[in-house]
């Protein structure tokens, strides 16, 4: 059974996989850049924690920087289970896509 993932959750999971150093601010920035939508830091935190709770992400504390007022980052990375889930999701979706008649995927 795949865990139930919302759209925001899915996007953020993907972003964590893309970004080298995934933490609240970096994820928020990438999200904004890639989708054009803004998202608040508290919202990101919520989603990251939720994903971690579902076992798709794991976290550890990173180093501190000056612009953070000397505060450390909580860095996230996807777990193997996270990767498995996301590829499964993709496959399922592709299967559905392929069932749509007269849709030329090549032309987007």
């Amino acid at each position, binding site marked *: 059974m795949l865990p139930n993932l919302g759209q925001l959750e899915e996007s953020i999971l993907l972003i964590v996989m893309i970004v080298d150093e995934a933490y609240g*601010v970096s994820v928020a920035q990438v999200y904004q850049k890639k989708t054009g939508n803004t998202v608040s*830091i508290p919202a990101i935190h919520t989603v990251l924690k939720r994903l971690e709770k579902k076992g798709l992400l794991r976290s550890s504390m990173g180093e501190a920087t*000056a612009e953070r*007022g000397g505060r450390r980052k909580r860095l996230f990375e996807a777990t193997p289970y996270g990767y498995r889930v996301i590829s499964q999701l993709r496959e399922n979706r592709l299967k559905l896509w392929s069932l749509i008649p007269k849709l030329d995927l090549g032309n987007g």
Partner: protein
Amino acid sequence: MAEEKYKDAKMSPPRWADRFLEWYCAAGLLDEIQGDLYEAFYIRAEQYGSRRAKWLFVKEVLLFFRPSSFEKNYPNNIQTVPDMYKNYFKIAYRNLAKSKVFSLINIFGLAIGLAASFLIVQYIHFESNYDRFHENIDRIHRVTLSMVRPGEVAIAKNTSAVNHPAVGPALLEDFPQVEAFARAVTQTIFINASSMTYEDGTGKATTFNEERMYIVDPSFLTIFSFPFVAGNAETALTEPQAIVISESTAKKYFGTEDPIGKVMVSNGELPLTVRGVFKDIPENSHIQFDILISFLTLGEKWGYDTWIWPEFYTYVLLAPDAAPQLLEEQFPSFVDRYMTDIMTEHKFQAGMHLQPVADIHLTSHYQKEARVNGSSKLMSFLSILAAFILFIAWINYVNLSTVKALDRAREVGLRKVVGAARSQLIGQFLLESLLINLFALLLSLVMVWLVWSFFQKVTGKEMSESLWSLPLWQEPWSWGTMIAVVVIGALLVGLYPAWMLSSFRPIKVLKGSFHHSSTGISLRKALVSFQFFLTIILIIGTVTVYKQLSFMRDRDLGYAKDQLLAIRSPAIFDSTITQRITHFKTGLSRHSSIRNVTTSTNIPGETIFSRNNVYRKGEDKSMDVVCFYLWVDPDFIGTFDMNIVAGRGLQEGDMVPSFDSKYIKIMINEALVDKLGYKDNQDVLNEIMILRLGMNEIKGEVIGVVKNYHQRSLQQAYDPILFYYPGWDSWKYLTVNLRTDQLEQTMDYIEQQYQQVFPGNALEYFFVDDYFDRQYEADQRFGSIFTMFTTLAIVVSCLGLFGLSAFVLKQRTKEIGIRKVLGASIVHILRILSQDFVKLMSLAFLIALPISYFTIERWLSNYAFHIEMDIWLFVLPIVLMSAITLITVSFHTLKAALTDPVKSIQQE
């Protein structure tokens, strides 16, 4: 350089919002939350300018203001793996095994507490479920009767459980809500004694005196559902001279033969046919009987117009949807309809009430109850007792765990260092507490099982054959409650030690400078005082109950109760009975061991059957007083060894020749002298009283005053009694005053005489003192139950003290060593060490004294004759408690005080 950039006031986030964030945010989360917000702030400041960035910062600080930000730990940080639980169990086991005394005291104490409460709960459950086995129990009510004189209110004293025989039929006639009625009346109101005889085919007769016998309407068997083993309950009593009998009665008369259709003869004259056999009436029935006789034996529609003979239990079965209150509201007009004439003639107001039969056992204490009922007061009292014992056991656990916590400080420190969160530690200790409580639960079940039959004996109730067949176990709530008590108890007592243990600071603990910590001392002191307080109250209570009981047993009752043998008057007799009794009396007095013989309607130890009014001649009738009429012969005073304080006793010549006599000689007792308003016993001599005899008001001349004696238990004040000597047969008892040294021979002689004079009757006798003391059965039972549970409470709290003092002393070993080196004597050390406990105990006494004083005062006021509350009532418990405490504490103290100081100082 960069640092400076971030310190620029214009370019930094709003201070107040930042502070607010720091205030609410858990320390562990500040890094990521504040860090991210700062970082985002600077990025946004570059992008959108500082105003927008500040605005967003404030907004997000507010958005972060949510429960998840207050949590001390990052939610996913604690990942308690199964291995960890295994470790908890292992450590719990090791700890239990390591300090065996501690574990034993804890588990044993808790088990006793739980077992005591189980027993009490079972007892209460049994007591509050009387009569529930009847199918229609919710619809069955008893109609009670109150008779109130002008200016009085209806209370238990003037309300009786019995009613007039016409009430039932009239209720059925008048109210559609009443589906059926049944009357039950004891056979003793028709005859003084009753025997049953069965003659089998060979002419061999079996005769027994039967007491538990009622005359009932046929509907009695259908309204109630007493289970039948033979015959049909619906038709069994629908004919005259039909009876149904209990299984064991059937066995007694017929052995293995089929009882149905057999004929038994009552009092040698009335043949009765057995039409059914019912299962022996269980203990939890408010009415007990062996034989039921059909009401039709008395006649068709018997008593349907008798409105002045309140001796009949009247039960009604209401329609399923009938509201008892609505029916009861119509009773006043019902009473007026039928009883107006009688009420005006006798100047009283009657009232009737519906009483659910299920409530009778615990709440009904009216006149003429079918049997002595239980008391809801006792039930609440026992619940309190159960709570006390449980509390004491729980306090032990808390105390011992907090002292023992010091031993485990290192473990906690180490766990914390390797990363255990506080919540994990709390979880661990709660788990341990739960384990100990579960052990205790198992042990307590074993204990309950072991003492079950003993407990049934103490309570005098045969609740069930085996513990597990109790109906209590079939109720899901009982299991739920049991588990809830154990789990909640475990959490309750585990929480404080867990909280305390988990609060240890690893650095302090691991440095080893922790042994003199005062953590938990004040709570421990409070709990120990509370424990003392409960125990003291219980001890004072027990001493009082014990003293009151022995006071009642030993008090001079005003007659020689130890040497009196009472014989029930024969059931089978003819017109020659008076001569026969005289013959029997003279026959007995010829024996050298027999001093005196008398006949009377009642003997001490029971309520006198006949009650009526009397007033002084020349005064208004409204001045009359209620008193008891006791019919005696001239030998009564001598046989019972009572005293005449004024005038003379009754003589042969004072005999009242017949029911129509208009002028008789009477004796009265001091209580009645007082009630009639005479100052002195001499004043009443030769005065004329007006009393009722049969249907007439007649004159009675007082010839003597009898010294007060206890007719009933010491709970009652002296009854006012009027004595006279009737010339017609009315005896219920023959009482023999005998020397008890050659009892067996004397008894043989009496038996032989009896058979000679009253052939065909079974001799039934008993000792008057036993009969009298029977009244104290409930008190005795109360005393035994109370003593039993108090002992348990004391044992449990001693266990606690024992354990506690052991641990406290362990911590002070070094101190004792140093004191000894410096020259302290053993006595001195003992005093120092016991001092703490003595202080706590004194405090407990100060609080317990007033409370127990008032409780005892209230309890004693239930007894018309009771012990005086003297100082010893309180001093004795103090001495007892101190002795117990000091012995318990000194066991360890002495050991500590005697240890070679070299050893104790060398430690560590």
